[in-house]
């Protein structure tokens, strides 16, 4: 069996006494779209820079295409990067920026020009080919930066928060541009971001990093439904995290005694020992909300504090009598039927299999 395109084998990166990345293990397959997500300073950008050769791992090994890359200098790799600052050359025009990688590889001028124009055309900015960089808009610059990185047709493209400087509506457009390109070209994207919506919308798999460690790797849906630990559950957001004591177990489920009542939770693998502390998560969109009790197994009463609209999705914030907060996500249409007013008491319920026990 051939090895994955990219392998990080127990990679450690220290800057002086500060450990930026600790014992990172990760494999990335050919053609995958991987997003590395985490808060500032979690080591995601350092990881990306190690892939580009801009930082050298302190320990461990990075292999790309089966070859040990630790000490290969950046210019001898084929790992172009789209920079957060874009890092377009202000002394070159759009086309010359795009040509840069080919020029460095000794491609002759007419071929360079033709291929650069092809790429600019493909990214729908062909008419700006001869323009100065500073005369282009943010979105156009972004496309020039993409074309510049893709012109050498690399196997692996690194993206460092490329959309963070764009307006919200442009971000959505560029997301579709990126996913379409990635599918058409079949190349591997490693995309670093702090934005959950970008990561979850585009990536095949998401890597969540915290304080230099990889906290979880998985499909967006799996990370959302079954966060590996409390950090991921909180970071991913829109999760209800409840804590209590294990009261008993039967047939793949455990009962957890919480301040809001005894609740049933799905427990994969070995059930935790009765009497121990445990936490579990319920995704906000898995919680059913109603005016009257519906007789479901996990039911809690809570009063409405506030609501938040994002497009057609509404998040309700509620509070149980003991102060436990709940988040419930539902469609705007469903909300209209509910006619909620602040202070109203609602019945919340969810299925036991939608509740996931967090590792202790």
């Amino acid at each position, binding site marked *: 069996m051939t090895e994955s395109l990219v392998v990080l084998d127990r990679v450690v990166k220290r800057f002086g006494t500060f450990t930026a990345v600790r014992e990172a293990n990760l494999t990335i397959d050919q053609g995958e779209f991987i997003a590395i997500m985490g808060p500032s300073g979690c080591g995601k950008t350092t990881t990306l820079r190690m892939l580009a050769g801009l930082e050298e791992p302190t320990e461990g090994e990075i292999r790309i295409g089966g070859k040990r890359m630790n000490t290969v200098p950046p210019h001898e790799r084929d790992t172009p990067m789209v920079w957060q600052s874009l*890092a377009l050359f202000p002394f070159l025009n759009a086309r010359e920026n795009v040509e840069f990688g080919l020029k460095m590889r000794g491609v002759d001028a007419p071929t360079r020009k033709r291929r650069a124009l092809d790429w600019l055309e493909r990214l729908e900015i062909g008419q700006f080919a001869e323009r100065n960089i500073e005369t282009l808009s943010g979105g156009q610059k972004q496309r020039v930066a993409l074309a510049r990185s893709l012109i050498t047709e690399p196997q692996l493209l690194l993206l460092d928060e490329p959309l963070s400087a764009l307006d919200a509506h442009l971000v959505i457009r560029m997301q579709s541009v990126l996913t379409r390109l990635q599918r058409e070209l079949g190349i591997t994207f490693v995309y670093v971001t702090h934005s959950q919506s970008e990561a979850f919308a585009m990536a095949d798999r998401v890597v969540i990093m915290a304080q230099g460690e990889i906290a979880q790797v998985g499909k967006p849906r799996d990370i959302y439904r079954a966060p590996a630990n409390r950090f991921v559950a909180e970071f991913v957001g829109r999760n209800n995290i409840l804590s209590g004591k294990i009261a008993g177990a039967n047939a793949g489920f455990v009962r957890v005694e919480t301040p809001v009542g005894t609740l049933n939770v799905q427990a994969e693998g070995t059930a935790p020992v009765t009497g121990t502390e445990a936490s579990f998560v319920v995704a906000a969109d898995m919680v059913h909300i109603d005016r009257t009790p519906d007789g479901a197994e996990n039911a809690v009463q809570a009063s409405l504090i506030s609501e938040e609209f994002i497009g057609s999705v509404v998040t309700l914030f509620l509070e149980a009598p003991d102060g436990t907060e709940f988040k419930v996500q539902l469609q705007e249409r469903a909300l209209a039927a509910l006619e909620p007013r602040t202070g109203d008491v609602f019945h919340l319920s969810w299925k036991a299999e939608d509740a996931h026990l967090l590792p202790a």
Partner: protein
Amino acid sequence: MSRLNAYALTWRLPIIIWQILFFLGPLLFMIAMSFFLVKNYRMIEAFEFKNWEKMLSRGYVWDSYWLTLGLAALSTAIASLIAFPAAFFLAFKSSENLRRWAIFLLIIPFFTSYLVRTFSWYVILAESGVINALIGNIGLGPYTMLNTKFGTIIGYLTLTLPLVVILQTVSLANVDKNLIQAAQNLGCSPWRTIRAVIIPSAKAGLIIAALFCFILSFGDFVAPYYLGGSKPPTLPILIIDTTKSGQQWPRAAVVAVMMMVTLFTIAFASIMLAYRKRVSK
């Protein structure tokens, strides 16, 4: 609005007055003087083209002009070339602390009079000086270095090199490091980034450093006089000689105006080149 203007003007007034009194005034007077006449060793106000006709038709004036231009250009090229590795090291390879100290040390030569620094070269360059003594040990020399064009260039560099290194260092240190990394990321070797990214990014500062070097060398009297032996004369020496021979201040003014026009042209062209915007289609 008018009060704000009055306030701003109050602050700007001293520099404006200074420039009028000590730059614009003398300049206009010098231009006017180039049309004056000299009779019986006295200058007479007039508006005649005689001085210009005389000076521009003399071969030795033009010989001196091209010599001065050539030496200043050579000094600029040498200073820019030998300053660059030092500035590159200070901007990219040294710590911030070392860079601060280096710039401080580069300013120290300006504490001493340029004349003193020029005379100290006698000890080093003379027939019986330090260099000839050293290379004499291995059977070479002695070489004549004083009173040659080589001496003039050494003098020019004494004046300009520290300044060129400082200006180049500052402009290289301001180059966006992300651009250098981006170039390497696209397959540009570290050596090649110098030509492909660093020089184009620092272009304005590098050109202005060279311009300063040219202006200082072109107008310098000390180096060609004391280290270059004043023969053949450069334009500043020609000015002195002209004023000494028969009180020909108007003819000296002609040479001075020629120098001013040359410097204006070169400074203007350099600044245009430094800040040239690429034409956007």
